[in-house]
């Protein structure tokens, strides 16, 4: 067991003793032990909750811009912004991020399918502008949640 201890910890498992001092009665020690158990339980509960939340989470963190399949930029969904994406051959698409959602406000492509697409915010959602070979997709900092493919 000792072999597995991080090096930063003092020998003889003394990090609690260092923190709380040497001179303690049995009751104090029991209290501390109970506190520690409580802390561990809380920590585990928190971790489990976080895990559960991550698995359930579908809202993304970023709008990722790919031009002809190559990522050129990513914008955090929690910061409102407006940016003109310039694609090969002079194509422009105005990407707006507002209230945690991304959408194309205007574009100079002929079909305007991208501008007609609803705002996206969930992992796996995409807006595609075929004429400009542009993909805007929602990604998260973790891989959990959302759909694998939108069609």
């Amino acid at each position, binding site marked *: *067991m000792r072999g*597995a*201890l991080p090096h930063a*910890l003092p020998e*003889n*498992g*003394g*990090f*609690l*003793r260092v923190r709380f001092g040497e001179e303690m009665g049995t009751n104090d*020690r029991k209290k501390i*032990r109970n506190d*520690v*158990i409580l802390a*561990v339980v809380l*920590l*585990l509960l928190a*971790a*489990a909750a*976080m*895990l559960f939340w991550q698995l*359930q989470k*579908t*809202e993304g963190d970023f709008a990722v811009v*790919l031009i*002809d*399949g190559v990522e050129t930029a990513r914008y955090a969904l929690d910061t409102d912004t407006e940016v003109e994406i310039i694609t090969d051959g002079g194509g422009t698409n105005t990407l707006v991020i507002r209230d945690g959602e991304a959408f194309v406000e205007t574009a100079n492509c*002929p*079909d305007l*399918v991208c501008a*007609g*697409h*609803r*705002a*996206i915010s*969930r992992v*796996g*959602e*995409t807006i*595609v502008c*075929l004429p400009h*070979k542009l*993909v805007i*997709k929602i990604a998260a900092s*973790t*891989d*959990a949640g*959302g*759909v*694998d*493919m*939108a*069609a």
Partner: protein
Amino acid sequence: MNKKRLAAWILALCLLGSLVSCQKQSGKTKYSAYYFDYFDTVTTVVGYADSKEEFDRVCESITAQMEEYHRLYTIYNRYAGLNNLHTVNDVDDGAHTVVQVDAKIMDLLLYGKEICTLTGGKTNIAMGSVLSIWHEYREAGMYDPAGAELPPMDALRAAAEHTDITQMILDTENNTVFLADPEMRLDVGAIAKGYAVEMVAQQLAAEGIGGYILNVGGNVRAIGSANGDPWSVGIENPDTEDTETPYIAYLHLSDAAVVTSGSYQRYYMVDGKNYHHIIDPETLMPGEKYLAVSVLCKDSALGDALSTALFLMDFEEGLALVESTADVEAMWTLPSGEQKYSSGFVAYTFTLEK
């Protein structure tokens, strides 16, 4: 006592660490890639691989195959030294010629004949003369919305006289194609994407590759599972005005296909009305019965062909076709936004928690 405390702490930290890194427990990472060079649409590849290099290798194999199918099946481009469907459609001195073709073309055209029979002519690859008129007016209308016009019905009717698939003469012994009607043109747009995707998927599976899902313009095909779990696929809401509902269905699938035909992807506007690309062989106009139809089955070629046919059929007729075809399920979205399902479709759906 102290040792026990320590042990508890360490255990807790270890557990926490393993929870945080739980996504990586299998060692595979999820990658994605997008391509724009095939079938005039976007190709999406999502896959699980041990490394980016491994994923890139699989993508190279996929794109090389897609490139080949695209070149063979396109009617819009010719390539030096290659007989493709553009060559088959060519007219020389007022007649088509007998064209020697690759087995991949022969197999597609044979499949096209089969599908035409199965769908009662709703999915007909011999409709090129009609579809080319729509294509021309749609392209013109997209680039000049103010001058957008509908094709004259006279021209459509005249073209529709030359859509008899029995005039497509296939010689499987010599691998030649001949269009006996000089005015006839092939257009495999309703089946080629699904067919190509299916062929690529089968090739990957034969090479022992799994953990990938492809999407070529709404033709989704899963090869294997998503790292042990089924893939989750969201079917986009065809009502683009509806901002609350991005997907009308969430599907779980492995080693299967789901193909969606919709009125909302390829269209142009004339006098404020949407005219999309799925043309009814009877009315010669875009089908107006549904906003979208999705077909769930094993084979994306069949899915592609059926989704077009169902889009143009009355619901009862389409439902009967689905229920009488093995391992096929479907979902119809009516113009009202209401969904109808075949008997087994809902079994594949799931709910995505917010």
